[in-house]
């Protein structure tokens, strides 16, 4: 592997103004939050404007960055000296390199589209202004997370997106489920944050700095044990934020938030922060193969778990959330592979950002049309009623299952093939995951848009307004062409190389490799099976009454049984296992430790009897001990 290029100090030019990308949305959030009700009328427009402005700045910065030679595309913009001199030298700066700018474009681009979409989606919400304030806050924090040139800045952004996410999940606080979900997300994320903080602290003590430049450049000099510790600690943080096993439980509940939130935060951007962290800390994982192995294992486990969960959900958003978990699992897997995987991880991340956002917003559009119904068993046959939504969602769907030549095909197959070379077992597991993806996404698609309508009586499905459909269309363009654009000719890999390093040999893209064909075959099986169960056949649960039941009962039951036995049961079982593990394992560990400390504390506090004589006793005994200790130390 080639080492990453040196970081260049930068001043002047638009890059010097890149702090505006963060400052603008932050300003928007501040105005909207402090302005209060006065800004209600135009607040959402301001929010959109700030996000768009940020996007524009990002695009200009991007092109200016492209103007440099490949190896000069790492620019640090110093903002201010947080702590100049002394033993702790923290300079707060922004790091502009291909990796961060990719994220910035994704965040501001998709973010702006979702802002626009939200104008329509939240039109009837009395607190729309606050919603936009939080969205802006989120964008600012997320940009800080990816742009900071040191771990401390990343941490601040990390906490910022956590806060924004908490506020947005619980946006409809009046629903107890939303409040509970917000709390759950907050608490689970804290576990991860502990890991991140620990990791940063160890980095501190090991390298004496927290800036990416010196830390990553000197990573190879630290001992492997230290690097493993750092890697695992950072991974814990990544797991929390990216909903990877074992900290995945909050993501499904987070769907209680408004749908644009699910699209932006819990699909396209925030949950990918973990992938960013792992890729950014690449040299640390390169120096710690064990930690990297754990990353890949976590990735594979999550991609399977997410996929299985996706098959068992009838709630359209939860099914999508399961899918998000699963897809991030793929990214993690790739990120754990080292430089070979980084480009695929990020490319998949970007492609996923497009198609998943498109699908989430599509789901939102469906819900919008169906009186906020989320149960897919009450959808069906929506395709003719909502052509645009159907088409964009369909493109997203095809992209995610890896339909040839669409985005997911390029990026996911890249990951699978890279994994195959690395470890066949993981590779085949990833292939199986792709098959399940094909199944559950098809199930979702067919149940929603095809088959016979199973609507509630008062549902009058209709296409959404233009302000909502245009973002869908734009996003689906990305989901169609994004992958090919990034992967063809290793374009993205070359682009990222200055930031994350270049693998020893570039992968040759072979469309008819064993893995590629196998993946396509497995996906086809999954799709076909889903078509049989949910496309062609009646979807059960909208129980067909009377004589129909007897005719189709056995077959339906049979299908259900298989479905249940193959997917739902394991899914539920897995979910239960996960819950069990969560309760007994992770929580158990945490609770157990807390109980231990708490118990100690409870018992120990009894020492504080309230009797002044007991206190005097402790002083006297302490004095005797102190004198005695001094005797021992002094060898008297």
């Amino acid at each position, binding site marked *: 592997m080639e080492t990453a290029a040196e970081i260049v100090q930068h001043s002047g030019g638009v890059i010097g103004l890149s702090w505006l990308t963060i400052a603008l949305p932050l300003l928007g959030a501040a105005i909207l939050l402090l302005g209060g009700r006065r800004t209600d009328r135009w607040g959402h427009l301001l929010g959109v404007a700030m996000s768009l402005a940020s996007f524009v700045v990002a695009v200009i910065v991007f092109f200016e960055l492209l103007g440099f030679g490949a190896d000069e595309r790492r620019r640090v913009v110093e903002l201010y000296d947080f702590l100049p001199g*002394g033993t702790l030298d923290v300079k707060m700066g922004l790091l502009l390199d291909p990796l961060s700018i990719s994220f910035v474009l994704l965040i501001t681009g998709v973010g702006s589209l979702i802002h626009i979409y939200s104008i329509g989606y939240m039109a009837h919400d009395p607190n729309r202004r606050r919603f936009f304030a939080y969205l802006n806050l989120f964008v600012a924090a997320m940009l800080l997370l990816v742009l900071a040139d040191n771990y401390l800045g990343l941490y601040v952004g990390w906490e910022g997106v956590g806060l924004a996410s908490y506020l947005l999940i619980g946006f409809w606080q009046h629903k107890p489920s939303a409040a509970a979900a917000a709390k759950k997300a907050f608490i689970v994320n804290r576990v991860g944050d502990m890991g991140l903080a620990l990791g940063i602290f160890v980095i501190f003590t090991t390298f004496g700095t927290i800036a990416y430049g010196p830390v990553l450049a000197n990573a190879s000099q630290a001992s492997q044990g230290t690097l493993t510790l750092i890697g695992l600690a950072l991974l814990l943080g990544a797991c929390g934020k990216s909903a990877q096993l074992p900290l995945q439980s909050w993501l499904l509940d987070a769907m209680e938030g408004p749908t644009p939130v699910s699209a932006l935060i819990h699909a396209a951007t925030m949950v990918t922060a973990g992938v960013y962290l792992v890729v950014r800390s690449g040299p640390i994982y390169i120096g710690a193969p064990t930690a990297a192995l754990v990353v890949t294992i976590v990735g594979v486990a999550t991609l399977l778990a997410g996929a299985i969960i996706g098959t068992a959900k009838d709630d359209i958003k939860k099914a999508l959330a399961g899918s998000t978990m699963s897809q991030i699992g793929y990214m993690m897997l790739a990120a754990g592979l080292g430089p070979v995987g980084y480009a695929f991880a990020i490319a998949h991340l970007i492609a996923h950002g497009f198609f998943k956002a498109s699908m989430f917003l599509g789901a939102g559009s469906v819900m919008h049309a169906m009186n906020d119904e989320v149960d897919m068993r009450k959808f069906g046959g929506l395709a003719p009623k909502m052509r645009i939504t159907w088409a964009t969602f369909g493109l997203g769907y095809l992209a995610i299952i890896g339909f040839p030549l669409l985005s997911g095909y390029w990026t996911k197959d890249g990951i699978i093939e890279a994994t195959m070379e690395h470890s066949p077992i993981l590779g085949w597991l990833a292939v199986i995951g792709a098959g399940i993806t094909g199944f559950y996404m098809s199930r979702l698609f067919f149940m929603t848009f095809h088959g016979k309508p199973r609507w509630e009586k008062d549902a009058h499905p209709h296409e959404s307004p233009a302000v909502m459909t245009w973002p869908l269309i734009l996003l689906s363009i990305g989901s169609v062409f994004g992958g090919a654009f990034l992967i063809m000719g290793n374009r993205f890999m070359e682009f990222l190389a200055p930031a994350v390093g270049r693998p020893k040999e570039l992968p040759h893209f072979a469309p008819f490799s064993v893995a590629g064909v196998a993946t396509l075959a497995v996906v086809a099986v999954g799709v076909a099976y889903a078509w049989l169960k949910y496309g062609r056949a009646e979807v059960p649960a909208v129980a067909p009454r009377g004589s129909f039941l007897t005719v189709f009962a056995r077959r339906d039951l049979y299908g259900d049984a298989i479905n249940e036995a193959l997917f739902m049961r394991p899914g539920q079982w897995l979910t239960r296992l996960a819950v069990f593990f969560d309760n007994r394992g992770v929580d158990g560990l945490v609770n157990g430790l*807390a109980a231990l400390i708490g118990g100690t504390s409870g018992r*120990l*506090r009894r020492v504080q009897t*309230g009797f002044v004589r007991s*206190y005097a006793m402790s*002083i006297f005994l302490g*004095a005797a001990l102190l*004198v005695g200790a001094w*005797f021992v130390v002094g060898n008297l």
Partner: protein
Amino acid sequence: MSTLTAAPITAPTIEYGELAPMLIIFGAAMIGVLVEAFTPRYLRKSIQMPITVLSMVGAFALTVWQGVRGVRSAAAMGAIAVDGPSLFIWGAILLLAIVSVLLINDDDHFVAEAAAVPGSAEEDQALSQGGAHTEIYPLVLFAVGGMMLFPAANDLLIMFVALEVMSLPLYLLCGLARRRRLLSQEAAMKYFLLGAFSSAFFLYGTALLYGFAGSVDLKAIATALSTVGGQDALLFIGAATLGVGLLFKIGAAPFQAWKPDVYQGSPTPITALMASGTLIAAFGALLRVFWVALGDLDAEWTPVLWGVAILTMVVGAVLAITQTDIKRMLAYSSIAHTGFLLTAVVATGKESQNANALSGILFYLLAYGFATVGAFAVVTMVRDPGGEAGHLSRWAGLGKRSPLLAGIFALFLLAFAGIPLTSGFFGKYAVFAAAVAGGAVQLVIVGVVTSAMAAFFYVRVIVLMFFSDPAPEGPTIAVPSMGTAAVVTLSAAATVVLGVFPQPVLDLAHTAAQSLFVR
């Protein structure tokens, strides 16, 4: 024995200029006493308050001036060391005292008539007539004077006297809470008895060190360390018992037991003053003794302080977890912070290392002082009908009732927890970094683990405030007076500024620490 044969006494030289900050405080205290004697009751408060604040501001200005002048010497016949650390500590104490006085000045923290039995008709009468003890102000001034003298004392005798000058007014002030007077009086008694007990140890240590060195001058003791042989027992026992007295004042385990009780029972503004000012003063004195007098004995006292530091951190963090009273919890947190500070005290190997550790400690003390005064100021504002709502359950849902107040309190708690962008982070970092540099890595590991535990109970309060449903008949949030509002604002501002732009203060602490203690 006749005076005829007595040698003439040459007048001592006293550097009034250098001692001016302290002299102003003591002078103002005496004027305050005279005001008590000669002015009518209704006027007293309006005279006392300006005297107190102005004298403190004046003393602060003079301290700054001394700092600018760069005075580094032992004044008043070598009794007082006016050196860098002293000046920094004076400045810190004065700033925190000014803030605390604003809090103290609030009307209803102090008993209307201390001599009246709680709940008696007389007390009701005194209350209804708006009685108030304006003696509080001179007492606070005396205490602050003592706090300034304590860390600047250059011999053990004046240190002992300063200890008492600082403590006696605090014993009294502890017992003067307006509400829950039984608790307050109990706190006063416990503090007094234990304080007297520990100062006896201090004195015994002084005696033995005097026996060892033939002088109580810190420099003379340091000199004797290298010249006197064969009397190690005197030295060791003396150092140990002297240490008991000092460790008691900073509240290190196993001498910490008084802290929770006294902090809880005292009037909250006094708790704020003690938690900030006394801690700083006592740490200053501790450092001076251990570095100036016993500096060459570090091979012996380092291991001992190791144990003390670990025990203190663990006791503070573990016991805080199950506390249900907010003031008690803050008291245990103060114990834990004492432990964190001790890690830096322990980790001093070389002379060059001393300056780093010292500057870290100085910064930490200032940062912690502001956060703690602010936190206690918030505590005074959350009220039940019977006084402050001390029980944590009463704080549930405070974030929904008063987001601003709860947010500020959360800020202070985060500062205690050492979260980045608050003052606590740099404080903690500075001391831990100093400890690591001094080779006390294991101590720092204990420190980090206990910090994590401590973070748990801070975050628990935040979660309680923001994520719990408010109690149906929750506490009222007192509309803050000008003073309290100013205290909260100032402390919050200091906490944020020290967390975001710590450099100037770090530099100041560094400069102050560079000169180390004069010998």
